[in-house]
């Protein structure tokens, strides 16, 4: 039997309510439902999540590594954009 690879999906997991989804890794699956199951079985076996997103890797539009300089370097010398002049109250864990 010829071996045809299933499409690749990227998996995003929200570890608890209030936090955002984070990229956890990727899995192969034949369809969207299967992708969700595979993500659940691969990445949430140890209670890592309360919500899962999966998206076809081919659907992700990514920045071009060749354009890194034009994309990101102009921000480097603009320190006034960083909110580092504020005092962060003690006890704030997720900011």
């Amino acid at each position, binding site marked *: 039997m010829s071996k045809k690879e*299933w499409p690749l999906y990227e998996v995003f997991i929200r570890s608890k309510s209030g936090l955002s989804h984070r990229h956890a890794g990727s*899995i*192969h*699956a*034949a*369809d969207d*439902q*299967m992708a969700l*199951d*595979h993500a*659940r*079985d*691969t990445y949430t*076996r140890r209670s890592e999540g309360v919500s899962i997103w999966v998206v076809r890797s081919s659907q992700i539009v990514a920045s071009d590594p060749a354009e890194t300089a034009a994309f990101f370097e102009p921000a480097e010398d603009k320190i006034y954009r960083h909110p580092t002049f504020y005092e962060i109250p003690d006890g704030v864990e997720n900011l």
Partner: protein
Amino acid sequence: MNKNDALLAYVLRLGDNALILGQRMVELVAAYPELEEELANANFALDYIGQARMFYAYAGELEGNGRSEDDLAFLRDENEYHNFLLIEQPNGHFGDSITKLVLFESFYLLQLEALVHCSAERVAEIAARAEKEIRYHLRHNTQWLVRLGDGTDESHQRAQGSVDNLWRFTGELFAADEVDNIFENEFDGPELYSIRGRWRENVATVLAEATLEMPEDEWMASGGKEGRHSEHLGYMIAEMQYLQRVHPGATW
């Protein structure tokens, strides 16, 4: 048979179903064609082994002879197991394994849902936990049966073959005997007759979605619940118990 004997017998059956099915699935570990399904199968197998442990630990207490969950799992003979014949059938091809799981779990989920409300507290507690696990298994396995049935000509044909072959083991799930009747009456246990009706409806829906035909109820095999098994169980148990028989009490 008194009330307590029936409770013990009932709990042991639940444990046996979970252990034997879990062991069957363990046989497929490292044999799956896809890594993600491999993980799913191993997770599911462990869910079953976990359920078996809880049922056996309770059965050991009910029995009161100091037998542990390991003693019950590894030191009984074939005719002392009371699992369904359906459970012990060989894994066969992927479609056989999936079909077996869908047929059994469609029943087991309904059984667990009823057990959550029974008056045997420990059983209700274990059932509440197991129900969540099995609900997910069934969702996953149902999707697979639909994919296979409604897939290619070959997968359709094979899945229909699996359904046809395994159908004769489904009668036993609903054949109430003394243990079932006492458990139903004394402990508010599952009513097998009504479960059968709902099982047929649910399975009919899945098969229809999978474009598979529901076989006619013809001759049904039975005996598992009484300890009369098909030739497959002995081999399975021999492999499962080998280590404990050769090195009694071995642990790691």
